[in-house]
């Protein structure tokens, strides 16, 4: 779809052993009020078993990026590769196979469920699409529910409205798990839950990640939640990544002024949580000008490099 004729150069820091790679991904939409360029050149990768947190405020493009991974819809330009294969080049059969390995969990599970279906059928939906035989189906549904701490006997015949918000979210996790994914994109999975319920859902995600060696892309506006979940963190602002690196490094020594601004704004119970240090070394124009990512610590990049204009030139 890109009008760029020469082969784009692959970003140097992408790793060869990655499960998922996004390279210079752009997403643009036509709306009534004009063209919205929601994601402008996002590049990152996720290794097997790794959790990448995507954090930022509303409108920064984090959800659009998460959806682009599953082609819901796909990027306007740039590539999403899964297990080394460019998703756009896959035949529909291969795409269906890849989809099984890529699952998504949404913020509001109730609106993601058919209210008239029973839990057993909600969790089994992906298996039905795959054509899993009847004999195997029940066992796999039970196993998926068991992994999120629920039993088929207890909840299988219930319908979504009979369940609490936390239970619904665990069922949507079970639904994603049932088809045996390698990677799950979690889009604000705990945003509307009370703290005790949130803690339990986060624990469930940690548990299934560990047990199944899953990779997660964890999209959230909540910096503390992202910290607990993620090995690496990418901070997004106006459709671009302004900082990416190991979670500890990003939270302890944030390099970009926007990251620091975000961290400073998080309300905390205990002031001792504010562990970051460091002074601004960015130009004052960071709000209006896009800069290239430069590596300042091992694997830790921030948009402090030269001014780039590629953001506005995509079809």
């Amino acid at each position, binding site marked *: 779809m890109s009008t760029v004729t020469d082969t784009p150069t692959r970003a140097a820091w992408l790793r060869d052993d990655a499960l998922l790679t996004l390279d210079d991904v752009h997403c643009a939409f036509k709306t009534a009020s004009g063209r919205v360029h929601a994601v402008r050149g996002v590049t990152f990768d996720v290794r097997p078993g790794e*959790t990448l947190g995507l954090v930022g*405020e*509303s409108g920064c493009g984090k959800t659009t990026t998460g959806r682009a991974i599953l082609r819901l819809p796909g990027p306007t330009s740039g590539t999403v590769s899964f297990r080394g294969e460019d998703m756009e080049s896959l035949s529909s059969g291969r795409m269906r196979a890849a989809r099984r390995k890529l699952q998504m969990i949404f913020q509001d599970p109730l609106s993601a469920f058919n209210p008239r279906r029973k839990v057993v059928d909600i969790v089994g939906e992906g298996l039905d699409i795959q054509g899993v035989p009847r004999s195997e189906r029940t066992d796999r549904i039970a196993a998926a529910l068991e992994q*999120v*701490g*629920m*039993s088929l*006997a*207890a*909840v299988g015949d219930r319908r979504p409205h009979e369940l*609490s918000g*936390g*239970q619904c979210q665990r069922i949507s996790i079970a639904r994603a798990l049932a088809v045996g994914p390698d990677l799950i994109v979690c889009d604000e999975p705990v945003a509307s839950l*009370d*703290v*005790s*319920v*949130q*803690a*339990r859902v*986060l*624990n*469930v995600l*940690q*548990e299934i*990640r*560990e047990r199944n060696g899953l990779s997660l892309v964890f999209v959230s*506006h*909540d*910096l*503390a*939640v992202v*910290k*607990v*979940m*993620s*090995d690496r963190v990418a901070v997004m602002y106006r459709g671009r990544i302004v900082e990416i690196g190991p*979670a*500890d490094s990003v*939270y302890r020594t944030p390099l970009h002024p926007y990251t620091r*601004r*975000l*961290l*400073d*704004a*998080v*309300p*905390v*119970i*205990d*002031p*001792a*949580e*504010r*562990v970051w240090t460091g002074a601004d070394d960015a130009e004052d124009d960071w709000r209006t000008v896009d800069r290239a990512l430069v590596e300042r610590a091992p694997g830790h990049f921030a948009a402090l490099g030269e001014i780039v204009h590629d953001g506005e030139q995509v079809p």
Partner: protein
Amino acid sequence: MTATGTDTLLAVEDLTLELDAAQGTAHILRGVSMSVPRGRTLGIVGESGSGKSMLLRTVLGLTPAGARVGGAMSFDGEDLSALHPEARRTMLGRRVGVVFQNPMTSLNPVRTIGAQMAEAVRFHQKLSKAQARDVSVDLLDQVGIVNPRQRIRDFPHQFSGGMRQRVMIAMALTCSPDLLIADEATTALDVTVQKGILDLLQRIQEERRMSMILVSHDLSVVAGRTDDVIVMYGGRIVDRRATSALFTPPVHPYTRALMLAIPRLDMEAHTRLPALGGNPPSVFDPLLSPAEADERDARRWATISSDIVEPGDVVDPDEERIFRPEPVVPGSEIGAVGTLAAEQQAGVAEGGDRDVAVDTIFEDVARDADAEEGTR
């Protein structure tokens, strides 16, 4: 807590709220007593369904049709229960400003901000339209709306979420209130916007020496911004103290549970969070005496664990992974925030040893708490 003394602006005594529903009688408030001193900021914290919002709506007379209200309420020494509902609404409307969570449901989408502000201003003061506009512009300026003289011609949809919330604060200030209530006013906002609104509320409260009630489900929003906190659970107030003493021993077991479940910015990746098991009490639970309710609640508050199985999820008694509450060190032995944090961090203990971990964490914490007693 009684309504005596001129320092008290709002006092509520043994307030109850009942509502008949298809499932039976909902006991939404189960005997709530609290007071708001003049010029101070009170935080109200609780999870969904705890009754925190209904408490304020009951005080304001905004209860649903058919609701039965019991107990006593007074505002500035005046007995609210004795007033006709209409008279009470008028009185409180002139002296209490309220900011709700979703400004779009409070603002009329087809009228300009200026028209809606001027209406509120002229409701409270006898002013000409031109004067009301000047007052509106001044108030919008005070809440940080840039270029207010132009912006009053705009419609609500032309403002961002944070700016709309600033407009709501300006409207709440049109009556020069003695009390400002912010009910989850920053809940749907981005963190940087939330900080701006909380800073604004704090500044206005200090400048005007108003009383303020900050209602939130988020303990961390309330922790740094209030003088006193009440914690609600199952339609009751279960913890009440100076905010600065919220985490000094003895920490209330429910407050402690809330605090432990909240992720921290300095946590390691893949930390398991200790959380309460089961569900909070239902509004349809029968009425209990305070002692009975305390006993029932204490049982749940003692079920902190990072296990993923909840009661009710598993019915088969032979099921291997039944929910088993973990033993807990009594709240009184837990130290202040630092120690609680250590306790929560200890929960990190690598995933595999979860079952063991929870036990040992609390032993460690108890030991730490003992060791630190001398230094606190």
